[in-house]
């Protein structure tokens, strides 16, 4: 899995590429913890290039949502592929954190 980092509209955007599998999930978790420790309280994960998420990946998303729950914090996912969207929806995750069609939708909502 590749992680490309960017800052836009006060939001830390992590564009992910590949599979968030058992090997990649800890790597993602480490990166997210680092970003939160650096003071990023608005984080958006862009899933355009993610075709698979394992249960380990789902656990990382929940753990991050838990760390970003102050009133001004924001955590969301954007541009989900149909496969990942289906998993998140059927696992009941879409009620836990925000899911946006695009990054721009997230920026507009979080303004």
């Amino acid at each position, binding site marked *: 899995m590749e992680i490309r980092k960017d800052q836009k509209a006060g939001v830390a955007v992590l564009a992910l590429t590949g*599979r968030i*599998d*058992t*090997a990649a999930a800890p790597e993602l978790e480490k990166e997210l913890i680092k970003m939160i420790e650096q003071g990023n309280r608005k984080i958006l994960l862009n899933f355009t290039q993610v075709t*698979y*998420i*394992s*249960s*380990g990946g*789902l*656990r990382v998303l*929940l753990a991050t*949502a*838990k760390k970003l729950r102050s009133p001004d914090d924001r955590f969301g996912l954007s541009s989900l592929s*149909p*496969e990942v*969207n*289906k*998993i*998140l*929806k*059927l*696992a*009941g*995750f879409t009620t*836990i954190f925000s899911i946006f069609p695009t990054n721009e939708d997230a920026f507009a909502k979080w303004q």
Partner: protein
Amino acid sequence: MHLQSGNELLDSQRWQEVPGTKNAVIFPFIRKIDTNSSNSYIIAMPGAVVLIDPGGLSDQMDLLAKEIESITTTKPVSVFVFLTHAHIDHFLVMLTHPFFYSNNAVVLAAHEKSAALLSAADTKCTQAELFGKTLKPLEVPLKFFEGRETTKTQVPAGEGGTYLLEADIFSGGHLAIRRERFCPGPGDSIEIFETPGHSPDSVCYRIGTVIFIGDLLFAANPGIAGSSGWDQKDLLISIDEVLWLLESEDIRICCPGHGKVISAGTARAMLIAMKTDAARLGDIAAVTPEWAQETARYAENLMDRVAACFTIMAGRCYRAAHILEDLEESGEAEKISGILNIKIIDDILEEFHRFSEDYRRGNQRDVHLALKAGQVSAKLEHVYRKERLDLIIDPYLVRRAARLLSDYTTTLRGFRKSVNLEVFDPGTALSPFIEQVTGSNCSDDELLALADNEQEYMLAFVTRLTRVPLFPDDPVTFEVLGESCRTCADIDRLEDLVAEILENLAATDHKGIFISVGPEENDVVVSIRARKTGNELEIPESDLIYMREECKIAGGTLTVSAEGSCYVIRIALPRVL
């Protein structure tokens, strides 16, 4: 050669005495089980060196050649290669390794049927075609069971020597096995027993208290049973005969063609268990390259579905645990997080994914992927404890995961998937199922009623958290149209299919779901209509093919169409009067 004291069984890659012999020694080369190469065994006797099954890999043969040469350089003696049968993983290295083409003293010995296959470079019975290997003719100077009965024959050996081959029938009770005895000089001899079934040319070798059993122990395994030359009737007879041999003769160690050396007692237990399996294999499909291609395609699709199913179940558990932690119920949260063995399951699925990537790069054949999926499926079935789960997670998901795994094992075995056809009224049968899939699983009132009992309350509460209604904000309408009517189909498979269709609609945010069941000419039709919402109903082609196939197995036909402002998915089932 340096001899070390032996243990009860034989160790890999060291010389040790052959138990029950005067002066024979053995160097086993034991491999982890795979389809690339068999185990090999070098037996050194004063009059000859015998290599049983040289295998399929060069580096394995390099090591074996070094060991053989360490004997033959100090004492010139003929070298024989004995095959347990002519499957490529047992002999392929002979076509390429310099040890064989530079060494005229090596005599290849095998069943006369192996000799015919090797001489004709038969790609089917040797499994070369199945594993994508090319062959060239290989001559077998010493043929076992070539019509000799109760006779003694001098057989040619390398460099002009001759050796004695005796033939007789080893009999007792109602059993009789054709036997030959290879005598390379005074002292120890090697017995050869004809044991067809796994292949027409399979034999077992015995020296002292050690038997070399070839692939007999694997002959009822999925993807092996049904391969070219496999014969159930012969196999059942051979199992009985080898069981009898193990019981009546002083045999203590069993050396299989693949995997660890085992005791004769373990081999007996395995043979008794596999006899039951083998007896059920009467009408299995032939294992051919076409079968392998079809099964590999099915395996990839199926493993994607298995992964999705387990991820959804695990996600629901994590989500419930997340909420329970918020409620300071960390004990319950921990329990629910660990209920699925998901870490182990994820690792097993990842193992298949890595193999599958290797397959897509062209490094593995169809048959390898099909067999790997079988191995992975068996591991998942072993760790998946569904009886602990269906109290907590939606029973239809729990059942689906188990069914996907058992369907694969069935397919790999070459059987049809199990279908339980029964006559029922789909209107009556589907109504509670659709309620279960789409509705809330424990209402506020139900929860309140349990408030006095802490245990029951917590179970109901956790269940409410782990079950995720597919259309929480938009109730699904279910209606039985017209008269009540019956069909003959597999109700569990029908329910799974309906659930999958609804999941696809939920995932693409479709609303206004209207499900109806009613008669149409000779059919009973389950119709699922969904209002178009701007999102396409994107059911991937592979899913659609799978669902159509599942519908056919369940007893119906599936069609998907767009009608005006709706998508309509119809399952037509035969109407039974």
